[in-house]
């Protein structure tokens, strides 16, 4: 019947014109110039995190007491700190720490939160109530205070910062995934899958989870930004990374003592944190528009 004719030569064009959800996403993402810039910046950051260590002109713990708290110069692009260490090198090397802390903490939080959200949303009842009440409790604390409390209990150190940040990003994901699950649970295509005889696991991971993926990705990106900020704040307060680690928050904290005389010591670490967090947020916004669930225009 319809097979007989697929509209002549026009059909040939249509045949080759395939749009997948991914290609659609890329097309929409490309339209957002600032998000593309942010993505580019983040890619550069990741490269720096991976290989920066081998490129920097000075070692991170190379003391030079002849050049203490010098301003930016050709030799020291970002100036030096109170021990004469090159700030540029320290910030470059700190990239890895900040990104690693942010990414690992949010990954843990996202995985835990997603699983909890899926279970709570899909099965409902007592499971859901327990999960959501725990989330409500965690939401009742401001994030940074919660993180301080956790670090205070576990002791300071980068590892514990990761745990603290993971714990406080979990409920965000749980709540998000739960609401998507609730909506998708009643969608016709999930009912259609049930009608085919699909098991709960199949429905959850093949139909509902992919439907929640766009939201998870957007939230993930945004959370990485705020986690880097939280981790830096903890280090700034002396509860995270310990000297002489070149963590950005710690650099900022050190520089603070000399702010009046040597502004560069706070300016550059601050700028690093600021730009990184900003680009993650812009990227998140861009992804949100690109991943609009209504795949059509």
């Amino acid at each position, binding site marked *: *019947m*319809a097979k*007989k*004719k*697929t*509209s*002549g030569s*026009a059909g040939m*064009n*249509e045949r080759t*014109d395939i749009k997948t959800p991914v290609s659609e996403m890329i*097309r929409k993402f490309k*339209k957002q110039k600032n998000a593309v810039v942010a993505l580019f910046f983040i890619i550069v950051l990741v490269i720096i995190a991976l290989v920066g260590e081998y490129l920097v002109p000075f070692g991170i713990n190379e003391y030079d007491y002849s050049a203490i708290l010098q301003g930016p110069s050709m030799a020291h692009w970002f100036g030096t700190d109170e021990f004469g260490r090159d700030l540029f090198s320290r910030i470059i090397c700190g990239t890895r720490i900040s990104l690693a802390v942010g990414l690992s903490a949010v990954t843990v939080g996202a995985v835990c939160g997603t699983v909890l959200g899926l279970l709570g949303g899909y099965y409902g009842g007592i499971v859901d109530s327990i999960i959501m009440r725990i989330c409500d409790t965690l939401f009742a604390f401001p994030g940074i205070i919660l993180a301080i409390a956790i670090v205070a209990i576990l002791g300071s150190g980068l590892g514990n910062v990761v745990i603290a940040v993971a714990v406080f990003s979990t409920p965000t994901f749980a709540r998000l995934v739960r609401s998507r699950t609730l909506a998708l649970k009643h969608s016709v295509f999930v009912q259609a899958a049930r009608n085919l005889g699909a098991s709960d696991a199949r429905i959850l991971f093949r139909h509902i989870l992919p439907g929640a993926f766009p939201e998870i990705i957007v939230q993930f990106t945004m959370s990485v930004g705020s986690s880097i900020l939280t981790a830096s704040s903890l280090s700034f307060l002396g509860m995270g990374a310990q000297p002489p680690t070149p963590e950005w928050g710690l650099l900022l904290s050190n520089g603070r003592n000399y702010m009046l005389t040597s502004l560069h010591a706070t300016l550059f670490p601050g700028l690093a944190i600021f730009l990184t967090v900003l680009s993650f947020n812009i990227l998140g916004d861009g992804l949100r528009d690109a991943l609009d669930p209504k795949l059509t*225009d």
Partner: protein
Amino acid sequence: MADTRKNVLEVKNLHTCFFMDDGVVKSVDGVDFTLKEGSTLGIVGESGSGKSVTSLSIMGLLTGTTGKVTEGEILLDGKDIAHISNEEKRRLRGGQISMIFQEPMTSLNPVMKIGKQLTECILQHEKISKKEAWQKAEDMLRKTGVPRVERMMNEYPFQLSGGQRQRVMIAMALVCRPRILIADEPTTALDVTIQAQILDLMNNLKKEIGTSILFITHDLGVVAEVCDEVAVMYCGRVVEKADVYSLFENPSHPYTRGLLGSIPKLGEEADELEVIPGNVPNPKYMPKGCKFAPRCSMATEKCQEEEPGFFDLGGGHTCRCWLCEKGGGEK
């Protein structure tokens, strides 16, 4: 059939395009028709035929979308309304032209009482006191045949059933006695028994108020019941135009014939329905010649290459098909 009635609405060579980021979509591509005073013109077409975009262009409701009238004229009582300011368009809407939509709930304000909505609509266009407006609204609502009018004036849209909401919409559209009522699939969301009620009501009110109606629908059965004249649209063009009797008696465009054949008819036994093969072409890959040629069983080489113009079949019956070239319209 010499018709001396005045033309209320004339649409001439209307082109409406939507500017998307991956190209321009011509939704309406050279549409002509006239609506005579006191008559009902049906525009029939399937989704993607451009029938709704035509109505939005007439209403001036394309602002805020990527759509734009790029060419052509829309004349209301001889005055062009396609190229006037938004403010002027706004004044026309509800006063001179009004519209009812398929889903009445989306066009009623959910948090405003029915009476208030009707009254506001009157006060926008007429300088009368609130009390008079209220009275007028109540009268209009009574004409639409809803029960317990006084109570309904103080109710919210969600308290009404689908049929009642559509009656309220009709009351709101007609309360300022517009010259033209555009009805875009007004009964598609309703059940058959309610649809019958609403069609009846529209026919009666048309006579009483003297409004001309532009009736947009996909349902040929509804067209046969309410329209005086019909324009069949396909891919942004009118392909056949006639008064309702000659159209159903002598459908000349293969598309019109196909449409009529596709509807299962009550009391008629058939193992298989006639079918128009294929789908409406993707607007990005419009065929070159006649837009219907790829789905047409009678298409010739010429149809693939060249788009036909209108051929007159007499009595105001025109058809855009090469088969009618000799004025034939053979069956």
